């Protein structure tokens, strides 16, 4: 067989990586490049979509060179991407009209509040399964259209296109202004607030509600289907899958059956539970979202617990405070002490996501005494990720009526043994890491390989899943209850910090 590998592109929040996988789902080569985070104002977070494209132009061929193969030996490309991040670009020049607005950006908080107060706001959650929040794309599109002179007219004429990162990259890969395919996958579309969660198509009521012209929107396609053939980066190779990164991880963890769940630990952390072919509504602050859709089969839905800040808190300790030189050193620092010393950090940097959804909350460090050292802060940083997971698991159990029996984890933070043990301790269930920690990339590769017949079926993929590590709970139940209570009291203290600027 000439086609030996599948390529995955993971366009993430902090970097873009390109990985080649072989038939056993084993990693063959990896290349990666970080892109710049722009923080032009408090609460604003932007990326340069052109920089991200250029990074891909470098790392794609480099990944092939590392494995000493040409594009001819790649069966297909799959894309996983940071979700919700909004790119608007000129159809004719291929140049973004503004910097991409990242999912963490809170510039639309006033707009969101205004929209949520409208008498017809109830319709949004009913139609798309999400509530109005700064996190999702539609308010951002609206904000950009309102704040950039002439943009709305250009968008209505179809001269300016909208896409999340996978749309942008597929369009660029298939030729850009010269015949580029303007599509989005259904999982990404499900995060815009514009797609009807039942029909899986753009909904006129939602488009009206947010004031987004249909002409700028990409065509919604299944996650696993050939969208086109690349003319750049990997010329001649089929682009056969796209999924939001969290959905890709769900797929990579082979959570194909109802009731299977995974949590991915990255910049933020996201717990997704497969709920089958019917969307399930949450009453405990979780999101209803599309898990994946294979070609013209029915879509598989998921419940999602989104945590905005986990790894990003470690990055802040590194870059903002300079307490550590590299992210993994947080474990070394945290191990220099035995406990948190009574200190808790709630990283509500852009409000709190699941299960609270408090956009006006801001981060705090509580329990400070002169006893606290940087070691205790490092502990509190890691524990924040553990407790936030606990809150989401509690919500998931309440919504599904089932008790989570074990947690499948993946993502960069799973290299942190202290953290993984703490998560097992506070959840009181085993925590299991699969053989490929890069599950986001693996999921995109699996999806693309499945689309082109490189892998025959889901069962075959499931057989590739193996346990690489396991952490068993070992915390005194009384201590667990006390510490959880302290955490919850800390969380309450973050609420109502930002005051609405124009209260009537």
């Amino acid at each position, binding site marked *: 067989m000439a086609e030996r590998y599948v390529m995955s592109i993971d366009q993430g929040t902090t970097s873009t990586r390109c990985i080649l996988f072989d038939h*056993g*789902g*084993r*990693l*063959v080569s*990896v290349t990666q490049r970080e892109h710049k985070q722009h923080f032009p104002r408090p609460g604003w977070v932007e990326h340069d979509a052109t920089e991200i494209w250029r990074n891909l132009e470098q790392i794609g061929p480099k990944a092939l060179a590392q494995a000493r193969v040409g594009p001819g030996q790649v069966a297909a490309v799959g894309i996983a991407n940071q979700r919700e991040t909004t790119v608007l670009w000129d159809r004719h020049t291929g140049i973004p009209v503004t910097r991409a607005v990242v999912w963490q950006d809170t510039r639309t908080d006033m707009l969101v509040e205004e929209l949520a107060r409208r008498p017809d706001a109830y319709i949004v959650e009913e139609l798309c399964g999400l509530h109005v929040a700064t996190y999702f794309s539609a308010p951002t599109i609206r904000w950009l259209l309102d704040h950039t002179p002439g943009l709305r007219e250009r968008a209505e004429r179809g001269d300016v296109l909208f896409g999340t990162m996978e749309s942008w990259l597929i369009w660029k890969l298939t030729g850009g202004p010269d015949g580029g395919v303007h599509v989005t996958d259904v999982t990404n579309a499900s995060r815009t607030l514009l797609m009807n969660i039942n029909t899986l198509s753009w909904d006129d009521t939602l488009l009206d509600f947010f004031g987004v012209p249909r002409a700028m929107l990409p065509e919604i396609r299944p996650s696993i289907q050939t969208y086109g053939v690349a003319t750049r980066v990997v010329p001649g190779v089929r682009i056969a899958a796209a999924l939001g990164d969290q959905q890709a991880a769900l797929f990579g963890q082979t959570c194909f059956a109802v009731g299977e769940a995974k949590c991915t630990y990255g910049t933020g952390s996201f717990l997704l539970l497969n709920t089958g072919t019917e969307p399930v509504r949450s009453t405990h602050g979780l999101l209803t979202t599309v898990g994946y859709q294979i070609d013209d089969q029915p879509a598989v839905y998921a419940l999602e617990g989104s945590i905005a800040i986990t790894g990003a808190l470690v990055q802040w300790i590194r870059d903002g405070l300079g307490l550590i*030189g*590299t*992210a*993994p*050193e*947080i*474990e*070394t620092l945290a191990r220099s002490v035995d406990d948190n010393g009574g200190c808790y950090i709630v990283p509500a940097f852009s409000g709190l996501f699941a299960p609270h959804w408090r956009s006006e909350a801001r981060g705090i460090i509580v329990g400070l005494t002169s006893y606290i050292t940087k070691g205790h802060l490092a502990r509190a940083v890691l524990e924040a990720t553990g407790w936030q997971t606990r809150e989401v698991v509690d919500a998931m159990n309440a919504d599904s009526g089932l008790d989570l029996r074990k947690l499948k984890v993946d993502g*960069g933070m*799973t*290299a*942190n*043994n202290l953290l993984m043990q703490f998560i097992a301790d506070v959840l009181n269930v085993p925590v299991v890491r699969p*053989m*490929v*920690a*890069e599950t986001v990339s693996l999921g995109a590769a699996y999806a693309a390989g499945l689309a082109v017949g490189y892998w025959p079926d889901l069962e075959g993929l499931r057989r590739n899943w*193996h*346990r*690489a*590590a*396991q*952490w068993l709970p070992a915390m005194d139940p009384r201590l667990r209850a006390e510490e959880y209570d302290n955490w919850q009291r800390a969380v309450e203290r973050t609420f109502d910090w930002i005051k609405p600027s124009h209260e009537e």
Partner: protein
Amino acid sequence: MPGPVQSIERAAAILRLLAQGSGRLGLSEIANSLGLARGTAHGILRTLQLVGFVEQDEATGKYQLGAALLHLGTSYLDVNELRSRAINWADALAARSGEAVRIGTHLQGKLLVVHHVFRPDDTLQTLDVGMLLPMHATAMGKVLLAYDANAAAAVPDGDLEQFSRRTIRTTRELTRALSGIREVGWAADVEETTVGEASVAAPIRGYGGLVVGAMGISGPVERICDPHNRPRLDLVTFVRDAARAVSRDLGAPRW
């Protein structure tokens, strides 16, 4: 005998210069002080930056001495950093070889397990991270002894602790084994720690080729070895390729 290496002399001069006064200098200031072309000074500074001896302030672009210089005596690669950088290749090695993978570093005369990937057969296994193993009786330990003169010097002269009939017995025997390991670039332990168990390991290198750890697989002798009780060459290749891939990511030169 060859004369002094000019670029090392210049690098030393740059470090001396940065160690004086305020300790923060721009590229032109450094180049002018030493009478070097800007391009030459820049090249040396970039290399010094890569190894951590010099840091550049992001806002001003000025150079100063790096934190690594202050910790020259201690291990320059944090073990948690090592695990994080190696985790993908350790996973791939376990998947390819079908055996458990461990990564180890030297800690006060013992081998410290810093990373462990289960054998991919989904049987019940327990994480060994944090465990201390004997240096002279394990493949990883022997790799570290072979490439770390300090670790080797710390082994007391005379008789070595015995774990099985096959454990290396004396320092003399060990010295001979280590020179063999340096020759081939990998080490094995066939029933030297535990009867019925074997392992194969190779060095992980960082900048300049400095060995920062060892990576290896272990399992039952009949799977790791051929009928003559020698490690299977396909497994040895997997281990060496994985250790090389980690080394490349850590900035080691190709070898």
